[in-house]
């Protein structure tokens, strides 16, 4: 099976201090560590597992500037056979809709049996590239996928619903499946794998190569135009307990005692 995996290079922000930049429309990116989007990591692993079981190839594709190569190299080290980067200054300001169009115009010229994406990206969280890509390609999709089985021209997938429930759904192939975390356990990359990946070629294409017009990408080709970003107003604010661990835990113990919890 030939599988295409769409991946995104995103900043890790869970533990980082976030500052709003001078435009007021984005966060300050310098100093942040970038890596493959968590959901895409599971998608790539799933693709490699399918390949290992039934043969075929895995191609990782990303839209982004040159520094996204580190994420593509990681994909190659993990078992992807080919990597493609779609880079053009005109792509700047693209939302998920514009990204899906860029991916579609590239992918429509490739041969594939299956496309995997992450269910969402941890930075902007739009949750829409996969199903839009499918619609533009004229094929089916399933999102929030936690399990995949193949059977005679269809994929049988478990989709995660709320509260731990899942639904089993059958989708005609080729299809786009958007992967939810926990579907597998992504492997660690071996040093050997990294070395080998460094030697592999990353194919780079721009706007002119994929046959889209300038107005279809970037901000003009997007649905969403960010006006401003800001720190969320707090529903309530915790009372901070300060001091040494000894002082802090003494205070916590007092609170628990006063509430009859110890």
């Amino acid at each position, binding site marked *: 099976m030939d599988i295409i995996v769409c991946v995104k290079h995103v900043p890790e922000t869970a533990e980082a*201090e976030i500052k709003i930049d001078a435009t007021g429309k984005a966060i300050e990116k310098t100093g942040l560590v970038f890596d493959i989007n968590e959901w895409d990591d599971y998608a790539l692993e799933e693709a490699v597992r399918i390949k290992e079981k039934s043969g075929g190839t895995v191609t990782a594709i990303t839209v982004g500037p040159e520094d996204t190569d580190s994420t593509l190299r990681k994909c190659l080290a993990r078992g992807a056979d080919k990597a493609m980067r779609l880079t053009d200054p005109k792509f700047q300001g693209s939302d998920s809709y514009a990204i899906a169009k860029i991916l579609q115009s590239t992918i429509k010229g490739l041969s594939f049996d299956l496309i995997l994406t992450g269910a969402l990206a941890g930075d902007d969280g739009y949750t829409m590239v996969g*199903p*839009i890509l499918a619609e533009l390609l004229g094929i089916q999709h399933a999102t929030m996928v936690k399990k995949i089985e193949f059977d005679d021209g269809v994929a049988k997938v478990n989709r995660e*619903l709320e*509260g731990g429930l899942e639904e089993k*759904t059958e989708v005609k192939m080729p299809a786009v499946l958007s992967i939810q975390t926990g579907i597998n356990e992504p492997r660690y990359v071996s040093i050997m794998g990294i070395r080998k990946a460094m030697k592999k070629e990353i194919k780079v294409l721009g706007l002119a190569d994929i046959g889209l017009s300038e107005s279809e990408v970037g901000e003009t080709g997007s649905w969403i135009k960010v006006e401003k970003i800001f720190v969320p107003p707090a*529903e309530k604010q*915790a*009372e901070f307990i300060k001091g040494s661990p000894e002082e802090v835990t003494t205070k916590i113990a007092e609170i628990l005692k006063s509430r009859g919890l110890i």
Partner: protein
Amino acid sequence: MTEIFVLAEHRQGQIRDITFEMLTKGKELAEKTNTDLTAVLLGKDVKEHAKTISEYAKKVFLVEDAKLENFNSEAYQKVLSNLTKEHKPLLTMIGHTSFGVDLAPSLAAALKLPLATDCIDLAFEGETLVITRQMYGGKVNVKAKVRKSESYIVTVRQAAFAAQKPNISGETMEVSSPLTEETTEKRFIEYVSPPPGGVDITAAEVLVGIGRGIKDESNMPMVEELAKALGGVLACSRPIVDKGWLSTDRQVGSSGKTVKPKLYIALGISGAFQHVLGMKNSDLIIAVNKDSNAPIFSFADYGVVDDLFKIAPALKDKIQELKG
């Protein structure tokens, strides 16, 4: 006069909360934009649902068809495309749920209508839709304009709006199903329930919730001891289950359990919306996180900005000392 559509979401005989939350917000938007609020209900044998929903909207479009019995984005998309083309609603609201995210993006792309997902607030400025949503796991909010269109689609975050029952008795209008043949490319097979768990975290009075800040599986015994000292049970955020360190029945949040213990101690949990949804109604919440800007601190009663590896063992010792 145009209208605002709210797509009703229901599953296994139950109307889901998001439906009433959207109808409440939809009513407010309809009043402000001088449009009508219309609920759209697709299903099979769901007249009872239509009756319930008609108490929230002026009109209910009811489309019944055996092919709509369970959610199926292919069938839903066909029906909604037809209704949208015919009625040109100013806005269609769909839940940002597992059903909604399977449907809204492809529907929007097919109709070439702009879509904004996971909205926590919506307003019209003139004819332009302005939305608020979150980025970076809830660390920042974004205010954005949606590309100008005569019709918009949004998905709405769960629990972003409180449902209120208005004083309406709407009219149900049956619309015949446009689905002539079987959907051919996508087929619902069955629901799969989670395996019965060993622990019921919803019954515990004290929960120690651990998140990715715990770093390594080898640190689990330390937090287990704290939970034990407090007479409580370990619970966790999603990444801990994804890694296989705790079983699914311990997961708190939108895709896990909703808990309301007397005490919830969050250790190394950032406070992403999907987690918070499952624990914010706990009686007392104490959060330990080394990042003072972690969103969890706007849901906690008490916060400690420090390394959990210092606080958790010290707290365990303190409790044991007090218990003697």
